[in-house]
């Protein structure tokens, strides 16, 4: 709760700071705000659940942990906005404030206890993202991305809202625990279909936000058109918060066996489809950015396994798996997009061949992207491996062996496309478009090194965060 208030107030303050027209001031200010909020967030750790606004928001260890991920991700991402500072971008203060406000939405998503807060969270998060997707105003691609994202997103939100209304109609409440009670002890059996249709519509709404198939079609186009800095934000913060919200909804509102009998097969089917489309789609790409978009779809599939391996609690193997996976995925994705942005800006191309010979011109960038790719592929020594390990073993423990086998086969496929950038960087020679050094400030180098270091630390000492929920 403290973090929501602080972020809103400081976000506003940041907006006013924009009047100074000093971009050099804005970047450290944004980092300072995020660092401060991140610290404040952990004050409530292990203090037990605290509820606010008549139980509409509940702050517990689960929400604090996921808030920690989204804030940390945003903090680690901010250095890559240095481009805007150097270019003298006029609306930088607005960008930062929109990011901070969308983080408020993300925090609401991970700590809601009332469907209204879920809706508000998703909208706060999304509206800022619609704007940021189109922030490159003179670029047609960016405009296209914003329009697509907005149209599809508004539609999905509509479906989510409709679902909530139906659930409310059937249960008479918006509070998660009361919904759960009403599902188990129905007053009127004839309302059941309404309840379940409502529940499935909510799944569709959230499934869209986390780009799970078959609601993923917007992802590649929107990711490609959106300025890379915001794409990174979209594929990490939105996904992490979305999955935390997903887990909360299933665990707290629909844990009943009768409801589970319906959403479990639905989610399993979505999971298989997402893994298939994400991985096979990524294989066919030639652009690193589009590949990362499909890879983000496929990672939604792996995270869905964590939801399917349901144990009815916001703690234990399943929640820990999702937590660790989101953390490792977010860090690696920020690193990948960070390098992509730097290289694409210098070389004006986003395809694999644009990376040719990067190991010779910029060993650091090549090294960091390699670590990021290995982590996304789930190779040991990186956090991504333990993310997959925890999620998969939670699923095996609950008997979903077939699903895990499929996911493992899919991650074998993923090795193909994650190795391609590595091969381009280390084994292909430079040509005239890629011979020049990519300029990187020491600030960004430091951020990239930190990301690589965090990924390796997660991969070597997973015990540091693996069992905290």
């Amino acid at each position, binding site marked *: 709760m403290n973090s929501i208030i602080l972020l809103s107030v400081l976000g506003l303050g940041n907006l006013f700071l924009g009047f100074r027209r000093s971009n050099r001031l804005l970047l450290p200010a944004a980092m300072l705000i995020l660092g401060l909020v991140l610290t404040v967030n952990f004050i409530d750790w292990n203090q037990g659940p605290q509820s606010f606004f008549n139980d509409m928001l509940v702050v517990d260890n689960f929400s604090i942990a996921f808030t920690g991920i989204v804030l940390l991700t945003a903090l680690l991402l901010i250095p890559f906005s240095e481009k805007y500072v150097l270019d003298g971008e006029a609306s930088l203060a607005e960008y930062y404030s929109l990011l901070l406000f969308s983080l408020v939405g993300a925090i609401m998503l991970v700590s809601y206890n009332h469907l209204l807060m879920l809706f508000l969270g998703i909208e706060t998060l999304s509206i800022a993202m619609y704007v940021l997707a189109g922030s490159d105003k003179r670029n047609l691609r960016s405009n296209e991305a914003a329009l697509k994202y907005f149209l599809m997103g508004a539609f999905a939100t509509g479906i989510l809202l409709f679902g909530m209304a139906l659930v409310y109609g059937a249960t008479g409440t918006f509070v998660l625990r009361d919904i759960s009670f009403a599902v188990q002890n129905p007053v009127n059996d004839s309302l059941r279909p309404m309840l379940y249709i409502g529940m499935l519509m909510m799944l569709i709404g959230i499934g869209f936000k986390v780009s799970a198939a078959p609601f993923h079609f917007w992802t590649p186009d929107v990711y490609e058109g959106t300025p890379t800095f915001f794409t990174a934000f979209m594929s990490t913060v939105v996904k992490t918060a979305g999955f935390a919200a997903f887990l909360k909804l299933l665990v707290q509102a629909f844990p009943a066996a009768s409801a589970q009998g319906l959403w479990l097969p639905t989610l399993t089917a979505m999971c298989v489809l997402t893994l298939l489309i994400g991985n096979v789609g990524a294989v066919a790409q030639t652009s690193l950015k589009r590949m990362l978009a499909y890879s983000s779809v496929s990672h939604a599939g792996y995270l869905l396994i964590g939801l399917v391996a349901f144990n009815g609690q916001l703690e234990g193997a399943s929640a820990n798996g999702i937590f660790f996976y989101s953390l490792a995925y977010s860090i690696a994705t920020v690193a990948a997009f960070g390098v992509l942005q730097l290289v694409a800006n210098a070389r004006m191309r986003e395809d694999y061949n644009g990376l040719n010979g990067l190991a010779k011109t910029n060993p650091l960038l090549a090294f960091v992207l390699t670590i990021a790719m290995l982590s996304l592929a789930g190779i040991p020594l990186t956090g991504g491996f333990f993310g997959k390990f925890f999620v998969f073993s939670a699923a095996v423990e609950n008997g979903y062996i077939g699903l895990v*086998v499929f996911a493992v086969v899919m991650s074998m496929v993923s090795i193909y496309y994650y190795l391609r950038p590595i091969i381009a960087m280390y084994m292909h020679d430079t040509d005239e478009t890629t011979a020049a050094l990519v300029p990187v400030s020491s600030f960004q180098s430091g951020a990239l090194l930190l990301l690589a270091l965090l990924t390796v630390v997660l991969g070597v000492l997973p*015990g540091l965060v693996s069992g905290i929920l």
Partner: protein
Amino acid sequence: MLTVLLLLWPVAAALLLHFFKGRAARIPALGAALVEFALAAYAAISFSADATGQFSLNLPWISSAGINFHVGMDGLSLSLVLLTAFLVPIILLSAFRRNFENESVFYALVLFMETGLVGVFTAQDAFLFYFFWEVALIPIYFLAGVWGGANRAKVTFKFFLYTIVGSLFMLAGFVYLYFQTGPTANGLSAHNSELLSFYNLNLPIATQVWLFWLIFAAFAVKMPIFPFHTWQPDTYTEAPAPATMLLSGIMLKMGIYGCLRWLLPVVPQGTAYWQNLVLILAIIGIIYGAIIAIRQQDVKRLIAYSSLSHVGLMIAGIFSFTEMGMQGASIQMLAHGVNVVGMFFIADAIERRTGTRQIDDLGGLTRQAPVLTVCFLVLLLGTVALPLTNGFVGEFLLLAGVYKYNAWMGAVAGITIILSAVYLLRMFQRVMLGPDSSFTATFTDLTGSELALLVPLIVLVFWIGLFPNTFLHLSKDSVLNILNEVVIR
């Protein structure tokens, strides 16, 4: 504690190596590898040759899941750690002959890989074992991929994909086994992944039968055993000589060690069920590798196929379930490591001087390079398994073991000695003897430093051949231990 030092020192040295650029990194890299060897030698001296795990350390790694950082050495682990620590300085020395780009990174990767290798040989926890298994893969992928020949991207990609798919199967097997185990002693986790709890599972035979293939997949690719070998000749040929030495001299032993430690005692009945099939595959590999080696034109490729053939015999020895076969494999691992590294070094020395590896282009080296000829001959005879050389002890024990299990198999596998004499001596004849070619007219003999590198290898060829007990008694009790797990159940 000593094991941890052996594990941490190379990776720490690899990190420190970044403070040196280019050639300046040579001496520190070599020094670090020699320190590691000194540590391993110290471990060997203070080791008491029985079956117990020594120098062990057991710390919680992921305590919520009952996964421990548990390392330790018994005789078998120790002899392979010794081999690793002995070969890495030699491999580094051989790398100094070539002027690689970004030398310091190259050496750092070699040292980093050493950590992975030592980790594989000492891990006592299944997931730690898997972790080190992959830690050893990543550096060799880059060593072969960045500094390799023209076709390297494609070839190393195949290598990486094969090995990682194999090891994912192994991981799946370990995860299954993990969920069959009981809770940890401290009660924090419902399961644990200790090696010993895997040994004590006593799974039903129907489970062991399919579990065998999950775990064996990783080892079969790594060794490699026919028909999982298709990545091997290409990778050995395309990789730069030091990487080839690492692959064939040490990395291949990971698979054999894995079979001995993590396959046979864990699924003994499953292994017994597939014993004949694996033996047949191994023997096909022996003959197949040897016949293809006879037809090879490229010296490096010939040695690669010869390595395939020799590995087949080691696998056959292990799967004979006899003490002789397993002891033979454990000493042949050392002997093969010594011989194959020496052979690849000489192939590289010839290539550096003449610019070619084609047998047809070479000839008559004896006249210009008598010292090289002698060294080559000794290593070659060791590989052919002539009595008094190291190859003889190993191959004799291995063949005796296979023969004891099944006389026909022993007889067919025994052809390897004849065939390896055929292809190796034929190569020797055409490269070293005969008339000069345009490539070899200005050939120079081995330099002092090259000789210094080969001398320890040649000493070991004879040492293992004459006093095999130095090493056999190290591994004896641990091999018996493994055999007990396999046969009694």
